[in-house]
């Protein structure tokens, strides 16, 4: 759910990074944080356990510049990927404008990816959203590892609808901004559609 403030001329949107545990959602945000001009970002908040596993969410506010005189801000969130944090994941999806699904390309994580995608679909439905109708992109992360599934197979399993998808190595930043740019574009186009309707 975007927030359009005509008084301060601002548009705020919420993007959620979803995916199985240890797929690299937080790493995506950390890279974006590291590479963004200090003027355009706020503090990155990570609610994590002592072992640096996401407990509730990571949060990164990003100011991207202006569209037609309106300051455009994206609030990026990650969900905790571990299966048993499902209640928290549901909360974070509230009011989402766009979702990035980060898949772990390793062979042994294929089941976890599929399960997490299904979980995303169910949790979105609980909030009244349909995965097919919201701005959505997929990222195949960890492409630098040796034991990976080919992107084409991942696409078959996770992206039958053929939404924009990207190969990535989030630890090195490969594909991270392409993914962000793509989801930001879809979210803004969706807002435009809503205003034309």
């Amino acid at each position, binding site marked *: 759910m975007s927030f*359009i403030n005509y008084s301060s001329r601002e548009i705020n949107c919420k993007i959620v990074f979803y995916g199985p545990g240890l797929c690299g959602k937080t790493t995506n945000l950390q890279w974006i944080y590291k590479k963004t001009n200090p003027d355009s970002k706020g503090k990155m908040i990570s609610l994590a356990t002592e072992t640096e596993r996401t407990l509730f969410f990571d949060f990164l506010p990003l100011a991207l510049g202006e569209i037609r005189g309106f300051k455009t801000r994206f609030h990026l969130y990650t969900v905790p990927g571990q299966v048993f944090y499902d209640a928290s994941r549901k909360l974070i999806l509230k009011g989402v404008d766009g979702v990035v699904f980060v898949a772990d390309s390793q062979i042994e994580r294929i089941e976890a990816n599929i399960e997490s995608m299904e979980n995303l679909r169910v949790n979105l439905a609980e909030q009244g959203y349909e995965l097919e109708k919201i701005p959505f992109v997929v990222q195949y992360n960890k492409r630098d590892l040796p034991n990976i599934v080919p992107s084409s197979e991942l696409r078959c399993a996770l992206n039958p609808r053929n939404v924009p998808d990207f190969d990535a190595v989030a630890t090195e930043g490969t594909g991270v901004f392409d993914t962000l740019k793509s989801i930001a574009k879809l979210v*803004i186009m969706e807002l*435009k559609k809503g205003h034309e309707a």
Partner: protein
Amino acid sequence: MLGSDLVMYEEEFKQIDAELQRLLQQANAKVVFLVDKNGQLIAATGETENLDTTSLASLTAGNIAATGGMAKLLGEKEFSILFHEGQRDNIHISIISQRVILVVIFDQRSSLGLVRLRVKKSTETLGNIFNQLLQKVEHEKVSGKREESPFAEITDEDIDKLFG
């Protein structure tokens, strides 16, 4: 989904800002701010210069969301007031019209009783302003009349420019 987007206009923003300032004064508070349930900061007043209000807004919403989740598990509709007590500063959080969150930060210059009393009064006023705002948004949607929309003539180029 888009039907429930939050839109804020100049007129209502001024009313909200005035009410927050009044509450700040009457409750003897340090900071008062309003957050959308999704974590977007709507307005803030008081000693906000050295305060990361964006992060606070997001964490407040997370806090309310988590508490709401607990309420549901107990069969409650919501817990409408949260209070965090610190050594120096305290935070009073309450929900208005089931949609927005009012946060009051105060220290020893005020008290929980005073804050609760003043918050209760402001809740009604703010609730009315938000209802008025929602009606206005709904009305403009139906009548097709809008303030100049920043999206109307947006192009791919505009979006590309965002990323420099």
